[in-house]
């Protein structure tokens, strides 16, 4: 079964951490990425801050165009920051991997994937 590990938190918290703490967080991510690499294909995505987003709201009626708003989807305190997706043999294994990147600045969600496709990389 494929699972997504989604990451929520307050945008900008990472930048507020002292350098050594930032490195510690990054080291955990790199460790997870290496581990996933050894197991096969995976996806890893870090999003830019919510303030860089625009939102496309549904058209108010059939004749109108969708509404484009120059801001994020919701002004919530915690936002969607990024995610991983990979094959795991069961939920427990997915949770074990998610725990590797747990930190006081992130809330993680493990959720099964119904369908996945495509392949992208910024490298």
């Amino acid at each position: 079964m494929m699972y997504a590990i989604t990451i929520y938190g307050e945008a900008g918290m990472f930048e507020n951490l002292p350098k050594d703490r930032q490195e510690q967080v990054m080291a955990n991510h790199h460790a997870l990425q290496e581990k996933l690499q050894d197991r096969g294909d995976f996806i890893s995505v870090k999003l830019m801050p919510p303030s860089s987003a625009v939102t496309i709201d549904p058209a108010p009626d059939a004749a109108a165009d969708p509404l484009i708003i120059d801001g994020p989807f919701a002004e919530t305190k915690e936002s969607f920051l990024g995610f991983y997706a990979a094959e795991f043999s069961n939920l427990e294994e997915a949770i074990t991997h998610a725990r590797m990147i747990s930190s006081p600045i992130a809330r993680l969600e493990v959720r099964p994937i119904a369908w996945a496709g495509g392949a992208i990389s910024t490298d």
Partner: protein
Amino acid sequence: MSDWLEASFAHQRPRAIAALTRYFRDVETAEEAFSEACIKALTDWPKNGTPRDPFAWFLTTARHAGLDKLRKAQRQTRLLAENRIVMESDAPPPPDPHELRDDVLRLLFICCHPALERQDQIALALRIVGGLTVPEIARGFLAKPKAMEQRITRAKKKIAAQPVAFETPSPRERGRRLGEVSLMIYLMFNEGWSTSDAPTQIRLTLCEEAIRLARLMTELFPGMGEPAALLSLLLFQHARRDARIDATGHLVAFEDQDRQLWDRAATAEATAFFHKAQRIGHQGPYRIQAAIAAEHAAAPTPAHTNWPVIEAHYAALHVLQPTPVIRLNLIAVQAKTQGPEFALREMETLKTDLRTYRWYHTMRAALLTQTDRPEAAIDAYRAALDLGPTGPERTVIEEKIAACRKNMEGL
């Protein structure tokens, strides 16, 4: 553990102090109340767990702490008599996002008070909104902590004596405040960027704080172009930090920088915010400057630079800001598109306006070197040396003079 907590405090600080300033109608009281709440969090949070909504926790705790203090303090009589604070037993609900963004903008705008010198405005914003300590700010300005402490205290007295209106601003007034605050953030970044006399790490604090504030403005005003353009510009610039100083502490000229050292993540984010500012249709000076930076970032080497497009951007910038310095920048680009002789002739018209501007002389010297007039170039470099260059700049200029001499012997 306290590192994580302090990151959270720093994160909450601008919004919390802004909301508390409106509540108490006084910046100093807001700051003290927030500090009290931080002290309480240091013992409370590790014991009871981090609250689900740290911002709401901070507001409630700080309001209690502040009211306690006010009741005890002498100014209680004055403040309460004027009925400036609503002493409700039930705490008011946390401000909604629109109220809060005006609160933060107001707090930054208070720091930008025209009665203050520009450096004091920046120092005040770093202290009150950024939460930097006085010694940290003093290092940023290369000042003595004692002197900085006095300056900040004086500045705080001045702003306390001239209160800003606490009503919701009109859209026009909001735009005006946003403009003032953006300029202060822009100058904060430049303050950290331009004076490279000290070890760069120390100076970069100001750049990083400016970026943090610019980010905050994009969070508060995600639909406005100016904050997006400003953040984009600062990120483009900041991305070059590692390339502009070499291992021996020498400044590296823009064209000689190893572009591999430009921070790719920062450039990508700068590009994203630039696109957003473009989409919104913002046309201010920050967007034009960001457009110039974006053009440079898109060129893998200096030889790939699209100078005609950059020239058009500078011409547009000069229409918005017809200053001699912008004109000089335009001429520097025209030296690429129309040749050094053309640029030298254009520069003649700025001779009087920019006679004390050292970059005028170094640029003229470079153009004279390019057109095989090393003797005149040396004179121009000497003029720049007389205008107080920073240590790294002086080193570069002296090297250029030596190169000109060598050139003359060869002729």
